């Protein structure tokens, strides 16, 4: 009896909190009819915005995967002064208001910024948007990889060393396969966060249509332009991407009793 009460309670909470808003969005969109929706999605601006979002997200995933694994490695395996401080600040992007992130970029690289002599145009450019996207999605790979890396005993690597494997070969053949599920999970989280970034990218990029406008900025602007069908359809596309990511996450989420992939 109590079992059913608890299950019912949890299902209704999750339903009201998570499912209902999704349904509201989809229903509101479908009222426009498929032709209108298709037209709204295929406007050049919408496509360019989606394209930019995808490019930024993919680039940020690549950078953060490589650097994330490296940083996780250093934070787990190396001993150095200030390690605990570095360990704590890794989570900072998690909590800094994205608007501030965008504005810091302008303060640093803007026309009269601290580093205005920087050779690459970062303020109000896609490069700058990439930088802030990389920043806000930095912690995910690191945080996923660190515990797994910490759980690997050094003997596995030492065993490989005594068998003649170099450091790089050991990393590739011994560590990477063990870390891979957590890296993938981190990648998916990074992808999701990058795709969804709004505040920082809007401030850092200036939101020029077709140039520095991402899908989320497009949704925001479309709402302002009373282009509700455009806003809802891109929102639903982002939502569908989220669902795709969700499926990936569920598939990849490190599970109990399945620690080692066969």
């Amino acid at each position, binding site marked *: 009896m109590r079992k059913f009460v608890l299950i019912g309670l949890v299902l209704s909470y999750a339903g009201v909190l998570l499912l209902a808003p999704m349904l509201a969005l989809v229903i509101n969109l479908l009222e426009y009819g498929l032709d209108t929706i298709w037209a709204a999605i295929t406007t050049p601006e919408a496509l360019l915005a989606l394209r930019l979002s995808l490019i930024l997200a993919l680039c940020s995933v690549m950078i953060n995967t490589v650097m994330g694994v490296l940083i996780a490695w250093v934070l787990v395996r190396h001993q150095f002064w200030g390690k605990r401080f570095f360990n704590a600040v890794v989570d900072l992007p998690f909590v800094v208001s994205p608007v501030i992130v965008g504005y810091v970029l302008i303060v640093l690289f803007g026309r*009269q*910024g601290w580093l205005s002599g920087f050779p690459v145009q970062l303020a*109000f450019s*896609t490069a700058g948007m990439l930088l802030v996207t990389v920043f806000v999605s930095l912690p995910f790979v690191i945080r996923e990889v660190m515990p797994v890396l910490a759980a690997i005993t050094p003997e596995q690597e030492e065993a490989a060393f005594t068998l003649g494997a170099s450091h790089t070969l050991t990393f590739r053949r011994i560590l990477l396969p063990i870390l891979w599920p957590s890296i993938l999970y981190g990648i998916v989280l990074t992808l999701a966060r990058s795709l969804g970034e709004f505040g920082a990218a809007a*401030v850092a990029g*200036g939101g*020029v*249509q077709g140039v520095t406008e991402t899908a989320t900025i497009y949704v925001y602007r479309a709402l302002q332009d009373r282009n509700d069908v455009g806003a809802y359809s891109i929102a639903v596309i982002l939502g569908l991407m989220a669902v795709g990511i969700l499926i990936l996450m569920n598939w990849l989420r490190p599970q109990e009793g399945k620690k080692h992939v066969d």
Partner: protein
Amino acid sequence: MRKLWLWVILLMSFAPTQAQTQPITLTLAAYAVPREAYAKIIPLFQADWLRQTGQEVIFEESYLASGAQSRAVVGGFAADVVALSHEQHVTNIVNAGLITADWQDNPYNGMVSASVAVLVVRPGNPREIFDWADIAQPGIEVITPDPATSGGAQWNVMGAYGAAYRGQVEGYEAGEAGALQFITDVFINVSVMDADGRESFLTFERGIGDVAITYENEYFAGLAAGGEYEIIYPSSTILIENPVAVVDVYVDQNGTREVAEAFVAFLYTPEAQAAFAESGFRPPVIQIDPDIDVTPEVEPTPEATAEGETQFPVIEDLFTIEDFGGWEVVVPSIFGDDGIYTRMIAEVKGQ
């Protein structure tokens, strides 16, 4: 489609400094509200420029809140032309040394469009709001944007404040004390303050509030999009003026001075002004040409139509920001850290 992408790639790779025969890129940084108007004006200008010079103009348009746009340009967003809601935002760019010429050196003082602060109510005006005084009544829910983020919101505050200051609001004494009392009573009624003017009006459209303080053009834009509400013209209100300027430093960098100046000049032509009028903007203070019909395509309020009125209604007591010393005085004294409004809002909402 394909062609556009090609251009985007091209534009991202190098700065637009092409020879005359090649297409030239003009970057417009505007505030969000006149987007519909520019959507009509830009093709007209492109055709006009092509006809005159044989050169194609490609537009990069950015529409953000006016303050954000101004900051972006100061921060290095190399826009050729800025069209903002608020003179102060252009002044910021001037102060940053990016606009070097006297941008107000034209018959319209650098202003390209105008509007007035108005009240918009639900169909049938159920709460019986007819003038400023009515929105200060207890129990009326008022929507206006946040002056901290929205230039437009400052116009709204100054419209209310100014009308009371001039003794045009029933029940409030003329002068500073009465005006402060009036905006205090109004802001007690304010329930949502969005980041910019358009967002604020959308909130009203979504069913929040009994009355929105907004701009005449916002009302017409909403009406055109199928919104159902009524406009109330206060007997006394402020004339809203929207500046446009060429950013000298950037046009010289981009090699776009000629086309940028031509574009700004084009905004004053009858066809461009007609496009502004269609979107609900009044022409700048000095009538460009009395013969031009600047009637908005959209029918104004039913009452106005009934009276056969097709022009923008005349405001009995129309005042400007200059009556209060201009923005350079008003911004610090009203909206500054220690300004009248800033102290008032902390007190009102802190209760």
